[in-house]
């Protein structure tokens, strides 16, 4: 091994780190405990040799028991055996596999954007990325929300995503179904910058329906993950992903969220990191807005416009992005229908019953509202879209 060569040293260190990251149930806190202020190369050596003194920190971590340590030691030992057999560095195979897939790796604290992570309580040990590196000069706003968004949430997510892109602000989000994905797609459509953080290996697309979006973010923006190739999505990895979203953004905007859920985890993580949290007000009758409305009552700033977010960032408000609301409906029936939809989603039958209008008239009214962007229909249910 080419000891003494600085580039070689760095590669050896990275290889050890990748090897540590690909251990099952190994997270940043455990890696830090194992390293104990030293480097990864040393840490993996401790693990292989089972040096009791060095493993004490790891044992102190919650959820780590002897069977887990034994499993890790077995995997590390086999990695060392493989490396010895091929005459290569430990982790060289993993490094090559990632390089082949076009994935770069950074230790967050050593990048240009190191200040993001300086005071972070739990920075990732290693970040895997595709696409451009994070440019610290570009302002970043997190746009998150429930996967089960309403038509209103879709409209707002789209509007904010496009508006932020128009203002030259990067949209940070989790590439999930619903608000996350819609906001990022809208930003991409406006040729804006996007940073997508995912909760699985970069080759494990989840949800599969977002495959195209995933690829577009990797091509035109930055796709990030804390996990090595091949790591499947697992429930505990999503809250971990959300803390990275929270850390990366300068302002977090919650578009729609129920009282609990992933978005609320992101909010907590953002609060822990002193990132301002803003929320989009929603109808008090909508389950999807209970969380955001609660955030507002707890003192979060409301987002009624892209300019509100830009003001929070300290950026000048511009004419960019904030799409003007469509003209209010002129016809009496249209207004009546819209009033009905304000209270929640309705079927055609319910609307007939409540407005007393005939099917044909009602259909015309709904058609007008849909074209004007006031209402949206899914599976026979009509919702107010604004």
């Amino acid at each position: 091994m080419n000891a003494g060569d600085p580039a070689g040293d760095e590669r050896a260190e990275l290889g050890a780190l990748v090897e540590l990251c690909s251990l099952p149930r190994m997270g940043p806190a455990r890696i830090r405990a194992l390293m104990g202020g030293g480097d990864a190369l040393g840490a993996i050596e401790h693990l292989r040799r089972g040096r009791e003194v060095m493993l004490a920190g790891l044992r102190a971590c919650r959820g780590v028991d002897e069977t887990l340590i034994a499993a890790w030691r077995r995997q590390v030992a086999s990695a060392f055996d493989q490396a010895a057999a091929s005459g290569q560095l430990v982790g060289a195979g993993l490094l090559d596999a990632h390089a082949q897939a076009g994935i770069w790796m950074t230790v967050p604290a050593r990048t240009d954007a190191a200040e993001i992570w300086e005071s972070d309580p739990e920075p990732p040990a290693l970040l895997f990325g595709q696409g451009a590196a994070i440019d610290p000069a570009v302002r970043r706003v997190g746009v998150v929300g429930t996967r089960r968004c309403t038509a209103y949430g879709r409209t707002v997510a789209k509007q904010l995503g496009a508006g932020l892109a128009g203002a030259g602000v990067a949209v940070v989000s989790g590439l999930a179904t619903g608000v996350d994905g819609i906001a990022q797609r809208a930003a991409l459509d406006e040729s804006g910058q996007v940073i997508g953080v995912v909760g699985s290996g970069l080759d494990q697309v989840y949800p599969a329906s977002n495959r195209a979006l995933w690829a577009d973010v990797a091509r035109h923006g930055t796709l990030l993950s804390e996990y090595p190739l091949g790591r499947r999505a697992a429930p505990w990895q999503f809250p971990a992903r959300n803390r990275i979203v929270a850390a990366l953004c300068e302002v977090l905007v919650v578009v729609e969220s129920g009282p609990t859920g992933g978005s609320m985890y992101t909010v907590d993580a953002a609060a822990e990191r002193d990132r301002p949290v803003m929320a989009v007000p929603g109808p008090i009758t909508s389950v999807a807005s209970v969380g955001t409305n609660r955030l507002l009552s707890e003192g979060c700033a409301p987002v009624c416009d892209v300019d509100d977010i830009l003001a929070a960032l300290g950026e000048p408000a511009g004419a960019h992005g904030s799409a003007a609301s469509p003209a209010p409906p002129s016809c009496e029936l249209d207004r009546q229908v819209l009033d009905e939809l304000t209270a929640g989603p309705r079927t055609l039958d319910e609307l007939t019953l409540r407005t007393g209008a005939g099917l044909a008239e009602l259909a015309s009214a709904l058609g007008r509202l849909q074209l004007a962007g006031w209402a949206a229909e899914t599976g026979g249910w009509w919702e107010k879209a604004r």
Partner: protein
Amino acid sequence: MLATATAATLVGVDGHVVTVEVHTSSGLPSFTIVGLPDAACREARDRVRAAVLSSGFEWPPGRVTVNLAPSGLRKGGAVLDLAIAVAFLTVTEQLPAESLRGMAFVGELGLDGAIRSVVGVLPLADALRDRALVVAPEAYHVARAAGPREVYAVDTLACLVAVLSNRMPWPDPPPDPPAPPPVPVPDLRDVIGQPSARRAVEVAAAGGHHLLMLGPPGAGKTMLARRLIGLLPELSRQCAMEATRVQSAAGLPLPTGLATRPILRSPHHTATVAALVGGGTAAIRPGEISLAHRGVLFLDELGEFAPSVLDAMRQPLEEGVVQVSRASGSCSFPSRFLLVAAMNPCPCGQAGRPNSCRCSDLARQRYLRRLSGPLLDRFDLRIQVQPPDPDQLLDGTGGEPTTVVAARVAGARERAASRGVEANVELSGTQLEQFAPLTPAAHAALRERLRGGLLSGRGLHRVRCVALTLCDLAADEPLINAERLAEALSLRASVGKLYAPAAAA
């Protein structure tokens, strides 16, 4: 010694003429049937022998060989019993040979000599239409419907021999069955509220548009489907013949002879591909889609059907005919039916309301993915059915009765007939251009929708077709204005985009 008698056997839904040849010779007593008989047909040996003996005739000792010509055709069932018996009685000189000339015999024999009806009397009688036909009394009306030269109903072998020997006249035919009631199915009046569902059912009946109903269990989807049958007009003679042919071949009861009312078939969602489109190993039998020919096929819980089963229906839906091929041969069955389907919007079903469903994203996507896009495209009408409003349910009076709506439907069907089709659903794009012009306002509305991605090219054609049916129902000029178009669009819910990926949102 040799004698022949004429009968027919069923292949798919078609009858094929079979000549039964019986030969006797001296030798050790035996009874052999050759000419590709199946198991049931081979058992005719024992039935015929017992029937002949118990009817008081003789079975002289010796070799009996029965050949069923053409020998390459597979013969199934007990349909040839009667022909074998009369040919045997002729060859043993218990029956005059000339009495069988111009006659055909279709029936199964009981051990006591009773003549019983068989499956597929209508296609069999149709194949034998240039002969005088002898059938069991139960099969008389169905056989008559096929229009052969003469049909005689005889109940026992002894009676038949007496008639053929000129010892007695042909027995009187059984009395005509009572006429079916004018509205034989549940009335639409029972449906309370649910205006859009009522409307969709009416439009489906008028235009032959396939209908998909989304909604929680107990919302009344099955109730609506059962009432759709009553809205359909009587079948024309041609259609009734086609429908009866399949129903007869499948052994469905046909109490009135010709099935003049459209039929409702509602197979359970565990149905296999063979059960739905037809199949079988020994004999190829028509499936549910053919049994529903010229009627309604109701698929409840559409999401629970196996995707392969649903996709197997796509081609028959398009072409109105299904070609079923097996190693033993291939049959084509008619399958022009009105497809009515009901499903829950998601596995939990209780909460179709957006954002209130408790199913996981994956479960929901998997549920909707069972419906392939091409199949979903076939449904011109897709509506959300919610349980009726409690207040309406308690004090509301029912809506229009079936007779009123059926009259409108009949009017619409007449208008469709003037365009040269059974129903509007069969109109092609160019015909629509010709028969259903758009007003400038409707034209503009459509263009805006197409631009906004709210409508696909195929959807455009279907929406126009439904709008034309709406015009027909209103007995209006076939000119599609913005309001008709809006109503047609409102009857076409965007299923499948329910939880669309962000990319498509």
